[in-house]
């Protein structure tokens, strides 16, 4: 197990270098000159030279990359071209909001997904199983932005019980309850796809375990069905689900951009999309870097956890 963990940790290094290289390359792949974008179309050549020097654009690319990496490592991601403030502060505030949304969605998807998968798997072929299968097929094929808009029409206009978007009310109460009310619709929208994916995996995992000898043994020795389910089925079902949960947690953070835009939620994804549309490259880079690194580490955590839970895992 030690060797596997060491290998898995070592693999993080090239992946992280690759991620940073890709994010850095964005700046140079992007059409247009960042100096022109910053100074505006009426800048004189002298001004452009100064700005290029200020941004370090007059140096060789490897030097620029090394410099950028050095600064990024201490949390300096440059300044926003549009707003003038440090990128790090923008990204950090929005990251907290995104993490909150992702956390709520993750809990929702995990609880609902495991319950639905267990019920469907234990009652294979029943009407309940078919209903769960049908609903999860629906959830899997509905675009997040469409589901979000439908929920807005239903619960913010037809039956106006929830706010249409944002994170805080402009006026009136703005406590925890207010934030919670703003989270309901985005969290449901974001959780839809992971819930169906988790439910499907849990269902097939349950079906596989039901055929195992130790389940037959447990039943044969007269264990009550409740005990069989909680002791043997639930526990063994969850092992393959953990890697999946890791992937889904990453998806919830990285894939939240669409949901955040639909609900005008002040998260990193929304910030990233706005910065792309406004050609504010330092902000885009900061958002992408943070989202990708979080994704890498969440997956690493899931792998380590699974390795700890399941001693049969391959050491290769």
């Amino acid at each position, binding site marked *: 197990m030690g060797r596997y963990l060491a290998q898995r940790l070592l*693999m993080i290094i*090239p*992946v992280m270098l*690759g*991620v940073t290289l*890709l*994010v850095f*390359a*964005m700046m140079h*792949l*992007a*059409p247009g000159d960042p100096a022109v974008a910053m100074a505006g179309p009426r800048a004189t050549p002298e001004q452009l030279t100064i700005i290029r020097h200020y941004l370090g654009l007059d140096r060789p690319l490897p030097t620029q990359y090394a410099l950028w990496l050095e600064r990024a490592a201490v949390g300096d991601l440059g300044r926003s071209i549009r707003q003038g403030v440090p990128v790090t502060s923008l990204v950090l505030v929005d990251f907290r909001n995104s993490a909150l949304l992702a956390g709520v969605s993750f809990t929702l998807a995990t609880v609902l997904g495991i319950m639905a998968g267990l019920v469907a798997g234990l009652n294979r072929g029943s009407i309940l199983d078919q209903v769960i299968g049908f609903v999860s*097929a*629906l959830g*899997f*094929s*509905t*675009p*997040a*932005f*469409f589901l979000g*808009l*439908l929920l*807005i*029409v239903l619960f913010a*206009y037809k039956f106006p019980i929830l706010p249409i978007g944002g994170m805080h009310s402009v006026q009136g109460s703005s406590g925890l309850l207010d934030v919670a009310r703003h989270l309901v619709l985005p969290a449901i929208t974001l959780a839809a796809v992971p819930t169906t994916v988790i439910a499907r995996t849990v269902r097939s995992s349950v079906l596989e375990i039901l055929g195992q000898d130790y389940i037959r043994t447990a039943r044969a020795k007269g264990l009550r069905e409740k005990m069989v389910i909680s002791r043997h089925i639930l526990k063994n079902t969850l092992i*393959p689900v953990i890697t999946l949960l890791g992937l889904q947690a*990453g*998806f919830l*953070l*990285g*894939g939240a*951009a*669409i949901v955040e*835009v639909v609900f005008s939620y002040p998260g990193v994804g929304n910030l*990233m*999309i706005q910065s*792309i*549309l406004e050609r504010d490259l330092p902000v*885009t880079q900061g958002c*992408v870097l943070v*989202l*990708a690194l979080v*994704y*890498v580490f969440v997956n690493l955590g899931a792998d380590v956890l699974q390795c700890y839970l399941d001693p049969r895992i391959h050491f290769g």
Partner: protein
Amino acid sequence: MEAETATQEVVQSSLARAEAMPERRRMALRRFWRSKTGVLGAFLVLSIALAAIAAPLVAPYNPNTVDLLARMSPPLASGHLLGTDIYGRDLLSRIIWGGRLSLTIGLAATIFSMVIGILTGIAAGYFGGPLDAVIMRIVDIMLAFPYILLAIVIVGALGPGLFNTMLAVGIAGIAFFVRLIRGMVVSIREEMFVEAARSLGATHVHIMWRAVLPALVPYIIVFGSLNVGWLILEAASLSFLGLGAQPPTPEWGAMLAEQRQYVTIAPHVVIIPGIAIFLVVVGLNLFGDALRDALDVRLKES
């Protein structure tokens, strides 16, 4: 002598296998027809594809003709089966023309990522060694991004637009195929029919083309068809975010984004494009799932 007999046996069984191919294909087809959901999916996809191909003939109006007197007519209003949008453009015509764009993008991006993914995956899996190591590290890096984030990054770098969106979802999809194909080639590499071809002195290219690739075909068909729906969804998402097709292009995701402020006044202007995306994706998923069962293809969890 023994080795010769063994080789002959292998050649014989390969020939028998080749002869059995049409029979197996017929069996698979029969299994597919038995799946009600698969047939439903095929029907959905075919009808949308036909309407898209014949768009100039079947679309009742020009998709971009503005009729301000007939703004936001509800579905089934006079002359407009699905109603009109906020500028009075006929929604049915826009959906039909939009289908052209969405299906083309999904198909083209899938073919793009599959061709590159299959070639790279076969090379990595077949040759192994340093080539494999380098390719797989690059794949690891690409898979270190959530799929939609990678596509967004690529569009962000290339600049918004319909073509760049197609390129972005295509590039972002490559890593998935490389890993899938490489994994299968590694196990096929040791099979008897590859061994036989090698012992008969076939070149690497010949072995990859004539022995390895055909064994992958069922997988390629299944994951290709599932992938088209997935990429259509991703491309529509990018358009919805304003990074893909730009108004007034009748692309489904862009239509939704353009009209979303009016969702409370005339919900159908948003619901109809949404349902169009949903139906295509459901159709392709049902079709792909049924194909998977019919061809008996399993995706290894990895």
